[in-house]
Structure formats: structure tokens, C-alpha cells
């Protein structure tokens, strides 16, 4: 089920909220938690009931491994068998992910190397598998290291399947979520928290339905016609996709955080105004924060982080970003995208003494959860970086706005490979940008934006002054970009939703945005991060 669907908003959500608060009100807490699990499974199985099989295998297997860790520790055998079990656990989780997501990719590449014919396999890829696998892997590794005790199976399943985060994250740590299920205060309806959750959900829905999906029409048109692009249209295509992806994914995360608040079980923030970043390193501290935190804690630091010299730090960074690219998709374009971001972050090493700060938990992942009574911090290897470029990078001498523009440009160009269907298509788009040619294709991209609300105007122009229509379309296209730019650098959705007190005007604004978004759902679209 998608957040941006009628069934979710008008059936699933009211039923879930009603059941959750009803069972909690009569103090049947375990029943309430079971109800939430049941609803979450419905939410997940709505796409395809077969997905439940892989989810069940993953959850049961994952929990069994955690229990095994504890048993070994209790018996004092952790030292002897700990590493073996850790390897087995990693193999289990990554094996599940690998089978479903990467089998086809590996077979295709092997066949192209050996020259043997390849018959594509039709393996059903369960949605959200990359996210819930990493979440379980993190928990398992913490258990294996003895950093956490094993929770009950009910808590474990709640942690994995809690519906606001199962599809596209954020990738949560056990400490951020499980503890909240035990706080009685969170089981009571809190009007302030609920109201803020509603506001946040509406803002996320609007980002997705009104901005990302509209921009997506022009972007898809551009990527369907790469051979026709000229320099300005290729440039707008690259920037358009970057902005679309941001509104799409951050819109989803806003909805997830908002839903969390409505249920009283809060979820970590995943974005922090990434386009205000003044370096690629800072970008990764602000973009998909929980993924960066995962890679830092469970890959970058175990590899030695920045403690083993400059060269090793660069290598570790590159490993993290190549893995991150591969995690995003089974394709060489994703790997190359990761490589470019690794280069971007590691570039700071070339200009200064210190590549990464050793603060493994340096980049803040502000967790809305006050369950633990403090702000959580988390690492950032992919987020590993602000200080690198900021203090010692080659861009040090530039003013911050210039560095921000440079960073946006670099990131935007790299994300061309993220969107492209192949590496070759990515290079084709980049090539078009730097060929400095004009053929008027921008007018066609502008027309493809096709803002429904302006239909009457464009139709009237088409009949009355058809020569003006392309220019009006272009104007609308540019104004739409301007609006997006304004929203990117303006107040964050989280700040808007948290700002107190609420006014009547804000209520009207949010209602209009909500209804406008609902009216835009009929051509229901999926989220871009959906299959990662």
C-alpha cells in the first residue's frame, strides 16, 4: 500500500489509528502492539501477498540468529563461536538480499564475460527488502557485539514491520524504536503530537503529489528522448531529476515521520536540507542520513575508518560509496554513481591534513525519539565528512554560497547516472550538457510538464494565440523550478510542522494542500525509492 493512495488515507490509516488508541485506552498494550503488527502486515502484503513469505523468513531467521548470539554469550562461548556466528548472520541477511535483488545482475554479467547465453530470471523482488534487511542486520551486529540485549519477538517484529518505515526506511536502530513501545505515555493520545504529525504528513504528501509527480512528467519525457536533448534541456533534465528525487523521497520521509507522530511512535529524520550543503561530504550528512549512519557504523568504522592513514581512509570511503551505489540498485550505473560520490567525499583528503574526523558518531542524526531521553547521534562516513571539505578541502577559499552552488552542480551531475537506465545513457545526458547546442527541445520538455491547473489557460492560448503557447509553457516551467528552488532553500517541513502555536490560517493552508494532494492521487504513482 502506498501512503499516497486513497485506501491508505481513508481506510487503512483511520482503522489503524482507531484500533491502536482503542486497545491502548483499555490498557491492552500487547494487543495494541499486535494490532499494529497485523495492520502493518496488511499494509505490506497489499502489494503482493507473496512478499510476506520472504519477510517472514527474514524476520524469523533474523530473530533466531539474535537469540543464538545471546545463548552463546550466556554460555560464555561467544569468544569461540562469535565470529563464526557473525559471519553466518551476515551471510543470511545479505544472502536474502542478494538472492532477490542481485541474482539477475550477477548472472547477466557472468554470461557476458563467458559469452554464454543468459535467460533472464523472474525473481519477485519484495518491496522494501533493502531497508528491512539493513535494519535487521544492524540489530544482529549489535547483538553479536553484545551492545544490546535481545528483545521479545513481538518487539522485534514491531521493529521490522512498523508500517511507516518498512518500505523505504528510514533505516532505524533498535534503540530508537523498541524502547518507545514500552512507554505508556506514548500510548495515550496527545493532541499536540498528533497535530504536528498530521501537519508533517500533509506536507510530505504535498511534496510528493504536487511537486515530485508534476516534475516527474517533464523528467520522464526528457529521459525517454535523450537523443533529442540539447544543452539547456539536458541541464534542466539533470536538475529536474535531482529535485524530483528530493521531493519524492523526502516527501515520503516526512509522511513516515508524521505518521510516527500520529501513533506516538516516532521515527528518525532522514533529511536535513541537503541542498544547503557546501560540500559533497556535508551533503551526505544531510541526505538519506540513516543510510549513511548504517554504512558508517557497520562498514566504515569496522574497516578502520580514518584511523589508519590517509590512503586507507580514502579506500574505506570508496568502499562505502561503492557499496552504497550497489545497494541502491543492481546496475553498473549505480556503482558508478557511488564511485563519483566516493570521489567527491574523498577529494577533501587531497587538500588537507585530516580526511575524516574520527568522530564515528559525529554526524548527527536527529531522532525525533525522545524515548531515550536524548538526541541520538550517528555516524557519517557517507555522512562522514563535513569537516573534511569544509576545513581542508580545495573549496576552502570560496565563500559558502559558491561552495553550495558547486556542490549542487556536482551532486546533480552525478545523479544523472542514478536515474539513467544504463551507464551509456548517463554519459549521453552529460555529453549533451557540455555539447553547448540549442535545438529548442526545452520547449517540448516545458510542454511535458503539463500543469493540470493551468489547462484552461493553455487551451485558450492554443486556440487564440498558438504562437505564444510554447513561451507560456516555458515560463510556467521556469516558474515551477523557481518555486522548487524557493522551497529547497526555505523553511524545512519539519520546522514548519513543529512551529508553535498553530493558527487558523495554517489550518486552512494545510487543509487546502491536503485536498489538493488527494485530488492529485488518481493517477497514483509509486515512489522513486520504492524498489531500492
Amino acid at each position, binding site marked *: 500500500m502506498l501512503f499516497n493512495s486513497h485506501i491508505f488515507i481513508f481506510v487503512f490509516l483511520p482503522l489503524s489509528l482507531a484500533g491502536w488508541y482503542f486497545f491502548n485506552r483499555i490498557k491492552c498494550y500487547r494487543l495494541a502492539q499486535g494490532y499494529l503488527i497485523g495492520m502493518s502486515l496488511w499494509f505490506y502484503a497489499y502489494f503482493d501477498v507473496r512478499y510476506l513469505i520472504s519477510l517472514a523468513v527474514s524476520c524469523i531467521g533474523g530473530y533466531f540468529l539474535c537469540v543464538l548470539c545471546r545463548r552463546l554469550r550466556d554460555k560464555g562461548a561467544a569468544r569461540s563461536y562469535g565470529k563464526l556466528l557473525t559471519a553466518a548472520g551476515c551471510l543470511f541477511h545479505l544472502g536474502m538480499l542478494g538472492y532477490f535483488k542481485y541474482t539477475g545482475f550477477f548472472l547477466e554479467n557472468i554470461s557476458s564475460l563467458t559469452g554464454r547465453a543468459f535467460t533472464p530470471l523472474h525473481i519477485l523482488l519484495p518491496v522494501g527488502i533493502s531497508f528491512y534487511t539493513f535494519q535487521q542486520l544492524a540489530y544482529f551486529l549489535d547483538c553479536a557485539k553484545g551492545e544490546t540485549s535481545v528483545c521479545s519477538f513481538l518487539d522485534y517484529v514491531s521493529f521490522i514491520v512498523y508500517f511507516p518505515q518498512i518500505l523505504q526506511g528510514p533505516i532505524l536502530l533498535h534503540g530508537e524504536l523498541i524502547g518507545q513501545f514500552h512507554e505508556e505515555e506514548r500510548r495515550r493520545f496527545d493532541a499536540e503530537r498528533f497535530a504536528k504529525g498530521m501537519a508533517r504528513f500533509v506536507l510530505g504528501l504535498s511534496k510528493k503529489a504536487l511537486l515530485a509527480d508534476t516534475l516527474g512528467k517533464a523528467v520522464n519525457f526528457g529521459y525517454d528522448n535523450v537523443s533529442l536533448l540539447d544543452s539547456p534541456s539536458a541541464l534542466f533534465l539533470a536538475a529536474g531529476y535531482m529535485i524530483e528525487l528530493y521531493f519524492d523521497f523526502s516527501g515520503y520521509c516526512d509522511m513516515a515521520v508524521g505518521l510516527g507522530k500520529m501513533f506516538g511512535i516516532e521515527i528518525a529524520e532522514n533529511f536535513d536540507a541537503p541542498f544547503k550543503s557546501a560540500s559533497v561530504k556535508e551533503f551526505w550528512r544531510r541526505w538519506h542520513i540513516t543510510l549513511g549512519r548504517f554504512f558508517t557504523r557497520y562498514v566504515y568504522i569496522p574497516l578502520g575508518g580514518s584511523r589508519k592513514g590517509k590512503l586507507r581512509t580514502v579506500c574505506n570511503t570508496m568502499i562505502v560509496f561503492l557499496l552504497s551505489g550497489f545497494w541502491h540498485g543492481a546496475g553498473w550505473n549505480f556503482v558508478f554513481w557511488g564511485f563519483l560520490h566516493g570521489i567527491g567525499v574523498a577529494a577533501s583528503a587531497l587538500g588537507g591534513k585530516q580526511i575524516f574526523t574520527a568522530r564515528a558518531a559525529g554526524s548527527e542524526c536527529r531522532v525525533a525519539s525522545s524515548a531515550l531521553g536524548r538526541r541520538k547521534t550517528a555516524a557519517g562516513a557517507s555522512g562522514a565528512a563535513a569537516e573534511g571539505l569544509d576545513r581542508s578541502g580545495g573549496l576552502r577559499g570560496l565563500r559558502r554560497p559558491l561552495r553550495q552552488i558547486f556542490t549542487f552542480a556536482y551532486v546533480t551531475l552525478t545523479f544523472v547516472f542514478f536515474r539513467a537506465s544504463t551507464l551509456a545513457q548517463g554519459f549521453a545526458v552529460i555529453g549533451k550538457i557540455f555539447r553547448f547546442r540549442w535545438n529548442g527541445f526545452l520547449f517540448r520538455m516545458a510542454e511535458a510538464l503539463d500543469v493540470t491547473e493551468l489547462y484552461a489557460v493553455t487551451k485558450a492560448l492554443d486556440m487564440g494565440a498558438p504562437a505564444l503557447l510554447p513561451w507560456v509553457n516555458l515560463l510556467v516551467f521556469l516558474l515551477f523550478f523557481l518555486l522548487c528552488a524557493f522551497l529547497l532553500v526555505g523553511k524545512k517541513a519539519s520546522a514548519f510542522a513543529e512551529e508553535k502555536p498553530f*493558527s487558523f490560517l495554517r*489550518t486552512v493552508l494545510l487543509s487546502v494542500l*491536503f485536498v489538493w494532494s488527494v*485530488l492529485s492521487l488518481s493517477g497514483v504513482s509509486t515512489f522513486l525509492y520504492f524498489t531500492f
Partner: protein
Amino acid sequence: MKKISFQKFIRYFLILSALLLFAAAALVAVFDPFYHYHGPVFGLKAVVTKSEYQCIGTIRNFSYDSVLCGSSTAENYNNGWFDELFGARTVKAIKSSGTTADLRFYLEEAFSSHEVKNVFYSLDLFALDGDPDANFVNDSMPLYLYDKNPLNDVRYLWNRDVIFEDIPYLLAMSLTGYDEGSSYNWWQYKTFSREETLSHYERPEEVLAPLPEEEYAGRVDGNLAHLEELVKEHPDTDFYFFLPPYSVLWWDGMYRNGRLEEYLYARRQAAEGLLPFENVRLLDFQSDEGIVLELDNYMDPIHFSADINHLMAREAADPDSPYLITQQNREEALARMEALAQRIAAGEADAVPGE
């Protein structure tokens, strides 16, 4: 700025949103541009331009006694021609690239709610080649308008495109003298010429071997069975089947793709299967060389101008039409087309490019 408590925010937000959603749904339900609930209101015209969205509504909720059914080759008919020639009130049931099962679904909807005197059916040969059991397989079809489930009507009632595009379009067209008979017409936006037609034809380099009969006979017979059942179930309805005139280029392409035998088989089976019914009239325009060899009649290898549609409508009303196939002249008519097809295959027809 008036400050409000969080409780009030929640209450006001829900009330205001409910009111706005109700207003949006009411607007759509009243104007109903897809005619899902009722026919035109407030003296507005029946503006019918989106077959996938409007066809089913017009079939269910319009007042008519005749149905004009087919794919894109039937879109350029004017309903008014049939109204005038047959003293009828006609509605179109169109599905572009539709299968026979799609069209049967439309006709059964019409029969279930109306007394249907005439069915004018464009018998496209390529539709006889489709899966006889598949209907509305395209994901983009708005099936929420087709089922009888009121719950999924929200996709129509709360629809930004309907509010900002279709309702304004309905109002604008009603005010600017829209011709209600021209439903789904598109000929006015196209160029019909030899150059245009040739520009849409890529002649296959190779001539493939003909498909064996067992490859297609089941599909063709299955599709024709749909039509024969319909005819049999409605003996009081007159069925007019048109074999539309595809250009010589289309036949050339079919020959080179190894499909010529299949379509000749489909024609023969259609004639043999349908003609025994007394309420069937079969009109064959495919072997009229004056039409099919003259590429100025076309915009691409398949689609002909509205003038040809008009001719077909007039001929259907003529009981002595030379295009009529009867039990008596059936073999002669089929042989005429087969001979033309052989000439095209042999490159003897003048209009075939490269010959």
C-alpha cells in the same frame, strides 16, 4: 493571526478537509463529464472525446437505440449520419486497438440497459487476431468507471484532471457549438495524403514464410464466436458488419510479415460464420481498389479519411449496395479480395512502394 489549540486544529482540519472533498465530489458528480452517473445536464452538450473514460458512461446513461462499435477505424464516423440514414439515435462504443472481447463487453452493457435496434460494427481483421479471452488488459484503463463498485468512484470524484481539465473543457465546448455527432473524431487534426501515408510505412525488408493455419485459427475462430453468440442472442437487432478498407500498404506489410493468409482466413471465416444469420448484413470495402490503392485517402497504412467512413455509412443504408456480401455472392466477393491480395503480394498493384 488567530491562534488555535491543537485539539481545535485537528477538528478544524478534518471538518475543512471533509467540506472541500465533498465540494470537489459534488462538482464532479453534477457536471459528470464522463457521464458515469447521468447524461448531460443544464443544457450542456454531450462532449465525448475520451473513449476510455467516457464510452462506458455514455453506453449506460445516454438515450439511444443504435450502437456504433469498433476501434480507431470507427472513430471518424459521425453519429448524425446513422441517425439520418436509419432514423436512429446512435451512440458510439469505441475502444482504440480494442479486442473483440472489449467490444462485446460494451455491447452487452448496451443490451442490458437499452432496446438496441441496430449495431454498426467495424470488423477489424487485426482485432480478430487478438486473444479472444482478454479484455481491457491495458493498465491505463480507468476500470473504476467500468465496475459497479461505488467505493472506487473516489478516483473519479476526487480527480484533479477532471476538475481542472474535463469540466472546463465540457463547458467551453458546449458554449462553442460542439457537434455532438462527432464523438471521438480525430480526422480534423490529421493530414490525409500519399506522402503522409508513405511516411508511416516501413516496408519489411524480408518476406517471411506464411504462418501455418493452426497458429491463428484458434484465435480467429474464438473472436468470431463472440460475435456469432451476440448475433444469436439478439435476433431482433440488425447487425451491420463493416470490413474496413485498409490501404494497399497494410496488405503489403501483412504479406511480407507472413500474415496475409491469416487475414484472408479471418475474412472467409467471418463471412461463413455470420452470413447465415438473418439479422446480419456484411459489407466489404476491402477489395475496392478505388479506395485501397489511392493513398491520398489515408494518413497511415490503416486509417482512412472521414469521407470513406461517410461512404460506408451510406452504403450500409442501401439495401442494394454493391459492397454487400450475401450468401449468394460470398465466394465471388472473397475471391475478389484474394485476387487483389495476390496481386499486391506479387507487386502488381500500382501503389505498393518500391515496385
